């Protein structure tokens, strides 16, 4: 009897409950959809506003804006070439330095390090991500920059700088601020993002796969090369793109160490400029309604486009091989 009345109650309560559910479902779906659309709309509004703000500069300079190395608030001529160059070179160089290191960290943490060492090393890498960028900037300015100028640059200039053809890349006047120092600081900053992503995805590889490979006589490196990396390829590239995205947009730390010079030099040891750094420095003093302000907004728009292209390229790279 008690069980019977209980099920009866359940039957009675059922439809009412479900109706409540349905209302909740609709409400929740509505909110979720609205959130999704809101983000899309917000992104569109930002791009549109940036573009509208940038329009006077695009009109005044035309296509020259993309290829001109001028940035002169006195004569009111602006070009994006120097800062786009600096942004791309410092970010790509940072990735070239950070990716092998991050892979080493992740490989060591998942395969090589003894159990007791994994946690402290992993935590240390994660803590690197928690350091505010201004701290990296100051470290680069006071320690890394002078150290590179005193110890790294003379060695590279004296050795690689003499090689015909590529020598110019390493030849420069001694200075504490350069694209190279900026790339070093950026490399340290993006390292934890890439390393943490790699470690996490390496751990998702089913043990069965690895054990099987070991069973066939593979070495640790062969397992990494032929089992783990192919299995996690998508996520690894995703992690690298995450790092690239951070490097492209990093402002504060780069401002400290890049030298903020609007000149293109063949040398990595010459000072340069990046989009984010230039905009942050000049925005507060750009007069309302001036072409200068519009040119800064145009740079912001370009950075948006660059980030978008990076994202799109990574999507293409990440497409499963079988489909095409």
């Amino acid at each position: 009897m008690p069980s019977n009345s209980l099920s009866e109650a359940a039957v009675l309560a059922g439809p009412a409950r479900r109706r409540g559910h349905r209302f909740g479902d609709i409400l929740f779906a509505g909110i979720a959809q609205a959130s999704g659309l809101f983000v899309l709309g917000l992104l569109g509004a930002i791009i549109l506003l940036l573009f509208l703000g940038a329009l006077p500069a695009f009109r005044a300079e035309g296509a020259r804006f993309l290829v001109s190395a001028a940035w002169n608030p006195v004569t009111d001529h602006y070009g994006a070439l120097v800062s786009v160059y600096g942004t791309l070179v410092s970010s790509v160089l940072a990735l070239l330095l950070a990716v092998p290191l991050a892979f080493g960290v992740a490989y060591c943490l998942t395969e090589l390090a003894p159990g007791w060492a994994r946690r402290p090393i992993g935590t240390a890498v994660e803590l690197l991500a928690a350091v505010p960028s201004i701290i990296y900037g100051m470290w680069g300015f006071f320690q890394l920059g002078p150290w590179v100028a005193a110890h790294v640059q003379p060695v590279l200039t004296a050795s690689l700088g003499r090689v015909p053809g590529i020598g110019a890349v390493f030849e420069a006047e001694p200075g504490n601020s350069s694209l190279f120092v900026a790339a070093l600081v950026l490399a340290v900053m993006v390292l934890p993002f890439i390393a943490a992503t790699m470690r996490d995805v390496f751990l998702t590889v089913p043990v069965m796969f690895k054990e099987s490979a070991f069973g066939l006589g593979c070495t640790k490196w062969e397992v990494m090369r032929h089992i783990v990396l192919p299995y996690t390829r998508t996520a690894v590239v995703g992690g690298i793109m995450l790092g690239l995205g951070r490097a492209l947009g990093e402002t504060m730390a780069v401002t400290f160490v890049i030298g903020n010079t609007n000149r293109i030099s063949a040398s990595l040891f010459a000072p340069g400029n990046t989009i984010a750094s230039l905009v942050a420095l000049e925005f507060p003093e750009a007069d309302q309604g001036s072409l200068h302000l519009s040119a800064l907004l145009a740079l912001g728009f370009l950075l948006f486009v660059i980030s978008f292209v990076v994202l799109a390229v990574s999507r293409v790279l990440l497409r499963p091989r079988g489909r095409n």
Partner: protein
Amino acid sequence: MSFARIALVLMAAGVPAAGWAEQITGAGSTLAQPIYQKWADVSAKATGVTLNYQGVGSGAGIKLIEQRTVDFGASDAPLQHIELVRQSLTQFPTVIGAVDMAVNVPGVSGDALRLTGPVIADIYMGKITNWNDPAIAKLNPGMKLPDLKIAPVYRADGSGTTYVFTGYLAKVSPDFKSQVGVAKQVSWPAGQGAKGTAGVAGAVKNTSGGIGYVESAYATLNHLAVAELRNHDGKFLKPSPAAFAAAAATADWAAADDFAVDMNDQPGAKSWPIVSTTFVLVPTNPKDPARARAVLKYFGWALKNGDKAARELQYIPLPASVKARVMKSWSAVAVQ
């Protein structure tokens, strides 16, 4: 019962206080921020005006006062007369500041190094690149100058200090005037940029062979090595409050529109060559006259009683005649 009594006491204490304290807001020049805040601290008791000042940079300060977001704007570079009329603003100077050349030459006592405006212009244009250049050696007979590259440092962020400095170089070097020009931001042919005064000072300190321009107040407070400069009369001077005041006194205030006087390279044996004022912008048609009255009350107090505080922070007070003219100019503000 007791609660009602406490409430009554609170009201009795609170009402007059609320009517007495007036809050004003200002934004702009970072150069002037220390003195405006100091004046606000010292004057609050006498005037009942409390100031909320944001050092967001001169350009941003101009933007904010044009939008009437703040009660006054502060800029190191003066606005043109036509711009003032269009935006219904009036401008007046508050204190005088100077610019020093911080130098870092190993083996040479920076304070003893002598430079001239044209030589500095050539350094910043990349024409003089070594410390043992004959042009520098000629100014410093008997000094052993090292064979070392000069690393000029400039402000990478837009800055009133850059406006003053480029104004001076353009005045003494025709080449600099035609090739670089005068602005809060220019396209520098040589050197590298650093953020803020502290950034420039740090970069000079960090780089052997470095030279940079910094506000005098900052250089003094941080004991930077600063070069002697040759003034208009051909005399080499160390930067000092007396030398800044001499330049301010010889400037032709009567001839300047809206107090936009050029104090660079003034004649006089004791005049420091790179000197400038910092300006305040106030609407002539304030939407809230009571707040405009409070702004003028605050600056009125500062001009009458603020000299000591200004000197403590290494600023130079305005000459008395200029103060009188400033206060007279306030009749343009509709405070009723």
